[in-house]
């Protein structure tokens, strides 16, 4: 990919990243950290690509390990964030979880 395009994407993403979380209340710091943590689990996509490209058993083994770790990061991250957020309710809803 062309370097200028990449630098443009990177720069704009930095600003978006700063902007979207600049005014978050401390109430949501933990779920936000956890959610952002789940998002970088998309390295799974990269792990699958390198597994597909693997030519030796060493490469394949390392890629598969990366896939396992990335899946844990991504899926575990989203599930745990959802569990935290499930409990945020604006008013008493009466029913226990």
């Amino acid at each position: 990919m062309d370097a200028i395009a990449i630098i443009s994407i990177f720069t704009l993403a930095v600003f978006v990243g700063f902007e979207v979380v600049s005014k978050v209340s401390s109430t949501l710091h933990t779920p936000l950290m956890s959610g952002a943590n789940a998002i970088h689990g998309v390295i799974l996509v990269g792990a699958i690509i390198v597994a597909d490209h693997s030519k030796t058993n060493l490469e394949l083994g390392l890629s598969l390990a990366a896939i396992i770790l990335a899946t844990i990061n991504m899926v575990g991250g989203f599930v745990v964030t959802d569990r935290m957020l499930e409990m945020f309710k604006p008013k008493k809803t009466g029913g226990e979880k």
Partner: protein
Amino acid sequence: MSTNLYSLIGLAAGVAFILALKGLSHPKTARRGNLIGAAGATVATLSVFLYVTPPRDGSAAHSLPLNHLWLILGAIAVGLIVGVPAARKVEMTQMPQLVALFNGVGGGAAALVAIVEYLHLGKDATTAEVIFTVFTVIVGCVSFSGSIITFMKLQELMTTRPVVFPGGRFVIAGTLVAVLGTAVWVVNALGTTPLLVLAALALLFGVLFVLPVGGADVPIVISLLNAFTGLTVAASGYVLSSTLLIIAGTLVGASGTILTRLMAEAMGRSLFGTLFGAFTAKPQEASGSAEERPVRSGSADDVAILLNYARRVVIVPGFGLAVAQAQHTVRELADLMISKGIDVAYGIHPVAGRMPGHMNVLLAEANVPYDQLAEMDEVNPTFGQTDVAIVIGANDVVNPAAQTTPGCPIYGMPILEVNHAANIIFLKRSMRPGFAGIENELLYDPKTMLLFGDAKASLTKVVSALKAL
């Protein structure tokens, strides 16, 4: 699937991540935001199975399905089997260390991807590609080993105090120089051995970097390592020509940096002070006589009487509440007081517990409406009109030493000024100091009453005593 379609799906997933972070910034939209993020990640993952990325050497992409398809699916299944139950079963108390662990494995995955990618890099690889790959290996390894250490600290598998050894800062500086030196070697020599040496040194650096960080500062480090992992993902995106990875990684890197700064601000210290404070902190003053100093301890009945005649009560929860799983009992007490016409608020310190917002999560679990939760700036001016402040398993976040004792490790951290309330009740397990390991003068204050025991058991007794009045 065409290259354009694949790229557009990647872009859509990137947009989903932006919406996810945006949604996560507001309580009303947070859950939906997280689900949008999960949907984006799922779609992106599925799209990789329908499009073969051309290999780096310029040869044509093979046709579908992917090579090693079943092994790849098997590895994902293993990840699901490990990750989902861990995420579903974890107690709210242990949430911070699980997030640290997830972040660590993400960093490890990024480092492994970079190592494999490095093995693929041919002679025609550009210097930029090599540098980005090396960057990912270094930062991914630091994030991995650093997160494992934070996990061990939070899980109390090792001491929570800063670990400082003689000449520590020189060892750390030396390791950093060695990491950078090896990186230059790898970029020039392009061998497998230099890369492995580099990975080992980076892992060591991650350990050394986190060891001196103590107690209450650990969450800030988790957030920082989270941002690091984001950056490694962005760098992998460059090497793998994946717009999606660049967008997602950069978003996490940028938002993680802001979040880290917000957390550090909440603790009233610079990021530099958080990371390297242990080396410059003066040794604590001896407090050997502390055990023998008189404290006023009371019974559940004494506490109930005090509460019964109060007009305004502020509840200050801390990690002890989480340990005792007392969030439901504390809500019961608050509801009972409200039904008696007492004005009740929860005073939430941003870093109470082991993670910013930890208390909010915990109280939300007990269905405490979040409009009863008051943030520090909101609740501090009201302590002057507060009859009783109940501190449940918190210590450092109400320690006036942060305002009065220059040189103590938490000096400068904003605190909940419960010392301005007319009466203070501490629910504590013992006289042991808090996570930061500092003596709290407030415990010896004449207007303080201590109720010793497990927070949940104590609260249950207070609730029944208050009902009987």
